[in-house]
């Protein structure tokens, strides 16, 4: 099976390339990238006027299987990923059961083998049952293919255990992903603490509850000589802490999610539960700080924190609704609309944030388009706009923060392992 993608603007951030070229795919690999390839191919795609990017790598995805198949499954989640141009996801371990033992990992790996339509990497749980009490056998998790660990959804409160996790993760060479939240400080908050929470009469979540924990985890990582990846950064202090830690030479990386660089707390007036997210949408100045962090490289990557929830869990009182939004199908378009179009990132930088940096951080050989690289490719029409409607989602859940918005950038094709895995149909 060969595919020839003609005349698209090919972006490979690692090589610093952004040129109109052809890409020839043979089997599961890219065989040639150059101008005017004359080869015969089973499929020829005219990509004139389009961008040809490495398949996106989203390192923060809740696939919900096993346990909450009503929200999402490996099958539906990876299908949603492909529609959004995402060819690799890192599956978060807060499933039921949690990904805390080899046995549970074997269960998930079986499901992935059968059902996944994109690449799924697995993140293990730092502690047994994500309870923060007893460290998982990280070496054993690594033995089952885990490439990172986190208790995402919760932070490990106990400093001793977290410190030990950094050490064990270093030995096993897996990444520690830090969900930074001091729940004693965030208490029962539901939106950012500030004038909007006052106005709406909702309990607030302070920025402090996030950045104090960022500060702690950076300190513990440093002491352990380990590597920390800070998940879903939402506030200015966290950005600044990571910036300083990087300057001091610490092995730290960070991600943010599309909603943190595009929406602020003002959007919550009206109590839309689809905007109930943890960490919460912050103030306008935090949004600016996150954008600055993306621009200057403090924040290495964009990950969706895809968190599917059913209508039953969202169409209820604000206080009672679940936290989280789906993001796989909108993240690229939101990034194009809010970052590229506004001149905050250029296309190579966008590819860095959504493909090559996550690949580097996770230590996976992906995120590039060059001869010999895996044929995971997304073709995007950068000018075409689309309306985000509830019934357009492939994900089992529709709890998007961008419903009703017009976004720029439409994924036309997603090639995964050399096969056209998604193709936009004309409605």
């Amino acid at each position, binding site marked *: 099976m060969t595919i020839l993608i003609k005349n698209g603007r090919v972006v490979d951030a690692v090589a610093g390339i952004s040129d109109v070229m052809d890409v020839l795919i043979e089997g599961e690999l890219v065989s040639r990238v150059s101008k005017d390839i004359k080869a015969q191919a089973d499929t020829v795609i005219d990509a004139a006027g389009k961008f040809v990017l490495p398949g996106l790598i989203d390192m923060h995805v809740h696939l919900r299987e096993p346990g909450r198949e009503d929200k999402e499954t490996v099958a539906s989640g990876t299908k949603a990923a492909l529609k959004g141009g995402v060819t690799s996801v890192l599956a978060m371990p807060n499933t039921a059961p949690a990904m805390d033992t080899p046995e549970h990992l074997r269960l998930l790996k079986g499901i992935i083998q059968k059902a996944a339509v994109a690449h799924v990497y697995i993140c293990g749980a730092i502690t047994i049952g994500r309870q923060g009490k007893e460290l998982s056998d990280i070496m054993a998790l690594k033995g089952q293919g885990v490439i990172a660990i986190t208790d995402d959804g919760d932070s490990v409160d106990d400093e001793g255990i977290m410190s030990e996790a950094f050490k064990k993760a270093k030995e096993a060479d897996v990444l520690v992903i830090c969900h930074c939240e001091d729940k004693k400080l965030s208490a029962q908050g539901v939106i950012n*603490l*500030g*004038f909007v*929470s*006052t*106005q*709406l*009469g*909702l309990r*607030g979540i302070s920025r402090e509850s996030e950045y104090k924990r960022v500060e702690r985890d950076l300190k513990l990582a440093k002491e352990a000589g380990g590597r920390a990846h800070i998940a879903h950064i939402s506030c200015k202090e966290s950005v600044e802490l990571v910036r300083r830690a990087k300057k001091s030479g610490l092995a730290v990386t960070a991600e943010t999610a599309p909603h943190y660089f595009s929406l602020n707390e003002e959007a919550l007036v*009206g*109590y839309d539960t689809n905007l109930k997210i943890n960490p919460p949408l912050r103030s306008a100045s935090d949004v600016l700080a996150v954008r600055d962090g993306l621009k200057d490289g403090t924040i290495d990557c964009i990950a969706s924190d895809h968190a599917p929830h059913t209508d*039953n869990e969202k*169409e*209820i*009182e*604000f*206080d*009672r609704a679940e936290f989280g939004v789906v993001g796989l199908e909108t993240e690229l378009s939101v990034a194009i609309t809010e970052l590229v179009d506004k001149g905050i990132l250029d296309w190579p930088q966008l590819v860095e944030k959504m493909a090559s940096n996550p690949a580097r951080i996770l230590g996976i050989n992906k995120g590039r388009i060059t001869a010999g690289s895996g044929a995971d490719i997304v073709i995007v029409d950068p000018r075409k706009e689309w309306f985000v409607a509830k019934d357009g989602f492939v994900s089992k859940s529709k709890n998007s923060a961008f419903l009703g918005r017009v976004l720029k950038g439409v994924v036309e094709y997603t090639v995964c392992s050399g096969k056209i895995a998604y193709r936009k149909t004309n409605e």
Partner: protein
Amino acid sequence: MKKSGWVRKDLLGLQELSKEEIELLLATADSFKEVISREIKKVPTLRGKTVVNLFYEPSTRTRVSFEIAAKRLSADVINIAVESSSVRKGETLIDTGKNIEALKVDIIVVRHNCSGAAVMLARQLRASVINAGDGWHEHPTQALLDIFTLKEKLGRIEGLKVSIVGDIAHSRVARSNIWGLTKLGAKVTVCAPSMLIPLGIEETGVRVTNDIDEALKGADAVNVLRMQFERDTESAFPRQLEYFKNFGITTDRLTKAKKNIIIMHPGPINRGIEIESAVADGLNSVILEQVTNGIAIRMAALFLCAQANEKLKIL
């Protein structure tokens, strides 16, 4: 009575209302106040309409006030009290609302312990929704009746100095009063221990103080909030006696205030906690007049929303 100018099917809060809309509500209530002062206190305005009082929080006074208001307008009234603690197990708020609507009910008056509940319900229903208090968010009819009473007593709102004393952070009454009073040009001061002042409240244009004497000094009126110790879940809350000592409205404190200062309270009052009995029952107190005016305000709210909704249905 002006019949144009009100286009909302719902009354959810005072924040979203314009000065003109608030004035229209007050003027409409004025006419209804005349009605309820008659020997025969009933008008046929909402004959054939059905009002449901859907209460997720225990409340006697607000519910009874809405019930009487609806009956004075000749509407049929049904009361539904829902045990809020079992909500998770039972029907969702929206499902309940839709079921009530399916019974061809015209107006749902909702009281709920979650902020935003009335807003959410209103968005989902064609029936009118009147917010009878949602969490810490708003309690528009209470603020309207407070403002109505003030205006009745002092002839105006513009330029008045009004102090609101008590748990501002957890008070929907405070929020609605702040929006309404500031829109009408009053100078509002809020007074409470620091931990009961919500973050950023000064952005609404109010002055903040922790000193009760400062709050009373020069004030034309003071609205004393009920201290809801029983609902409190935060730790380190000032104890009742300590609160009374530092923030209680007493005859002694009032000697330093304007002689004719108006004393308001949304009720039910906690004698000896936020207000001294002598003050609650004293000459400056308008607490019972507030209760009476509540009926006129709620008649106005029911009437205006029902009328606007009828027009929306035609469109």
